[in-house]
């Protein structure tokens, strides 16, 4: 098997508390060694001087739209967008058609990903059949088929008793429950965050309390059941405070936040532009401040994108008719560096942890470190070069993003999955490179 050496980069491996200039030697699909001045004889060389070399980034919350909505995204196109965003593993939500509520659908996704995806794809199964919130899905069989968590993302379980039973089952199978926390009665008909802006624009609001009451409910159910409860895309100040409280009580509660929720507020919404429409909605400035603070203080465990492709035909409508969700994979690292790293608020090691070891731990994935002998998933980040995001060159099949033409300082430079380069960008970060050894389909 071919050897590859990543020379002279800043190796950031949070699981091993490592932050040092070193080489990373990859032999075949495994990490062979990490250390200074490794013997590179016979190895292909990648000069990582000035770059970060980190465990492969994991996005624990994406929508790949396949099966059923292949006009929006496919497992292949989503995986390519992931690679171009520096992600080596992505976890796909079950709201496909059919819903991933059975081992048959899970196996379809796993097999399709094995054949067509350029990154690892870990499916998340539904909590209830058809995500209808009534009968539990085949949780154990889906686990055998490859799911790493359960969630009815986007169609949250409203019945607290059903959620309790789901948590009991998930706990017994060693799976976390990921909940999109939204009381659908409180948010009914809402299109954006409830506040002055929604009132001004004449749009129905999605109040923060619609998220908060469900976070509270699920924390209490997690205590009753012992189940690991993971809050998807946390966005409100009170929810973050409750997660902090739950952790202080020693409960098995974790949370992820999306880059758009720590960078944009409801004031930033271009009126009636659906590139700013997602759930949870862009919230108030104090919610964004709380999200930033939650990352700085460590209350929030992971950063996930909630990559939610929708084709132009669906986003080019009256605002209230447009579906919720925006792309996220290709802009996550740039937004994170801008918000936390360049200003020194959070150490690079901690930020890398939120994208690697932390989601790996939450989902019990055998990924997220550069320890010797593990699968060689590596993300290489250029932390300082300026580049501009052009969504028209996105690998996604969709174009719905509020970050088109945004300038970033630093971003992903190359992505290695199972020891193979699957994506790379030119040194000025403006152009995607043809990787000669791109894995053949």
């Amino acid at each position, binding site marked *: 098997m071919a050897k590859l050496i990543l020379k002279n980069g800043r190796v950031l491996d949070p699981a091993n508390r490592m932050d040092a200039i070193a080489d990373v030697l990859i032999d075949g699909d495994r990490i062979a060694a990490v250390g200074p001045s490794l013997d590179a004889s016979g190895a292909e060389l990648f000069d990582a001087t000035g770059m970060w070399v980190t465990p492969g980034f994991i996005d624990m919350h994406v929508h790949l739209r396949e099966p059923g909505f292949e006009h929006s995204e496919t497992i292949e196109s989503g995986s390519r967008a992931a690679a171009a965003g520096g992600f080596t593993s992505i976890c796909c939500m079950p709201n496909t058609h059919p819903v991933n509520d059975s081992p048959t659908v899970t196996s379809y996704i796993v097999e399709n990903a094995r054949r067509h995806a350029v990154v690892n794809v870990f499916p998340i199964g539904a909590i209830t059949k058809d995500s209808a919130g009534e009968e539990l899905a085949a949780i154990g069989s889906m686990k055998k088929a490859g799911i790493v968590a359960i969630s009815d993302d986007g169609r949250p379980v409203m019945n607290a008793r059903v959620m309790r039973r789901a948590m009991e089952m998930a706990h017994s199978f060693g799976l976390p429950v990921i909940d999109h926390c939204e009381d659908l009665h409180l948010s*009914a*008909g809402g299109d954006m965050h409830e*506040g*002055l802006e929604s*009132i*001004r*624009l*004449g*749009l*129905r609001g999605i109040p923060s309390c619609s998220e908060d009451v469900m976070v509270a409910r699920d924390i209490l159910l997690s205590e009753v059941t012992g189940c690991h409860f993971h809050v998807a895309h946390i966005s409100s100040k009170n929810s973050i405070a409750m997660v902090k409280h739950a952790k202080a009580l020693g409960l098995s509660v974790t949370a992820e936040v999306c880059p758009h929720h720590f960078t944009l507020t409801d004031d930033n919404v271009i*009126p*009636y*532009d659906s590139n700013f429409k997602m759930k949870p909605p862009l919230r108030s400035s104090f919610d964004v401040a709380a999200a930033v603070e939650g990352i700085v203080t460590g209350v929030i465990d992971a950063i996930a994108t909630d990559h939610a492709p929708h084709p132009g*035909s669906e986003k*080019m*409508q*009256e*605002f*209230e*008719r447009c579906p919720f969700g925006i792309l996220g994979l290709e802009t996550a690292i740039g937004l994170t560096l801008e918000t936390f790293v360049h200003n020194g608020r959070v150490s690079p090691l901690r930020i890398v942890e939120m994208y690697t070891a932390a989601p790996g731990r939450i989902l019990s994935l055998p990924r997220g470190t550069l320890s010797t002998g593990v699968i060689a998933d590596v993300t290489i980040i250029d932390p300082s070069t300026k580049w501009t995001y052009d969504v028209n060159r996105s690998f996604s099949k969709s174009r719905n993003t509020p970050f088109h033409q945004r300038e970033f300082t630093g971003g992903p430079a190359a992505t290695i999955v199972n020891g193979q380069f699957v994506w790379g960008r030119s040194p000025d970060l403006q152009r995607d490179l043809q990787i000669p050894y791109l894995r053949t389909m």
Partner: protein
Amino acid sequence: MSRGLLGIEDLSRDQIEQILARARDFQPLQNQSNKRLDLLRGRLIVNLFFESSTRTRTSFEIAAKRLGADSISITASGSSVSKGESLVDTLNTLAAMKPDAIVMRHAASGAPHFLSRHLPTPIINAGDGTHEHPTQALLDALTILDYRGGLAGLRVAIIGDIVHSRVARSNIYLLSKFGVDVVLCGPAPLLPPQMAQLAPGVRLTHNMPEAIRDADVIMMLRVQLERQNESPFPASEYYPFYGLRVQHLELAKPEVLVMHPGPINRGREIASDVADSRQSVILNQVENGIAVRMAVLERIIQ
């Protein structure tokens, strides 16, 4: 304003005064036997009403005719919208027929704003969802000015289903720009606290006598059941607490004006005798609608 009229919020006081001044030029026309001017001869106006409307559509049609323009009206039920065509496609199709302006009413807030970013044709907003209804606020201002020397310093109470009202929002923006003391009043679920921050000089109350006390103008709003996806309060509670009755008028200034954008629901938000009272200027509003819309059409198209 060159590209259309989407709302009052973005207009300057100066622009509003120009429109009102021009509307005043057109007011006497209503009483002449020849009501037609040829200021917009040969121009084409498309009235596109995705939501039912009697007075606004008719008013725009008459305004166009009086200016000598050709106008056609399309309603959603008789159009390709009912065949599943998207809004953008419908509008692109109409724009290809090169109208000089599109007058549009739509049930979705922001629909004309969204379209104006994708179409070259100027769009006049004839009411978008629960957002704005700019020509209504302009004709309301014209009506008030018919009876009062100016707007500054007046006290205007707007009462009813505020949160779902595009008329309320447009009036709040307009009146605030002219230094009016605006009091909003309605049941709590229909009057969120953020309404007070929409513009300077706006305050809220849930108490109707308090809202009306010393008011120069009372604007009543219809309860927009069609826009509520819930029953925020018992229907039986509405009239006793928020229906305008004769005894309320005693609390207001002596020459108080009672206004309503229509259609009125007698006995629901307004007592029949109040709607027909000396103070009621509801039909003056309708009449002024034509003059205001003439001024707007002329300004947008010329």
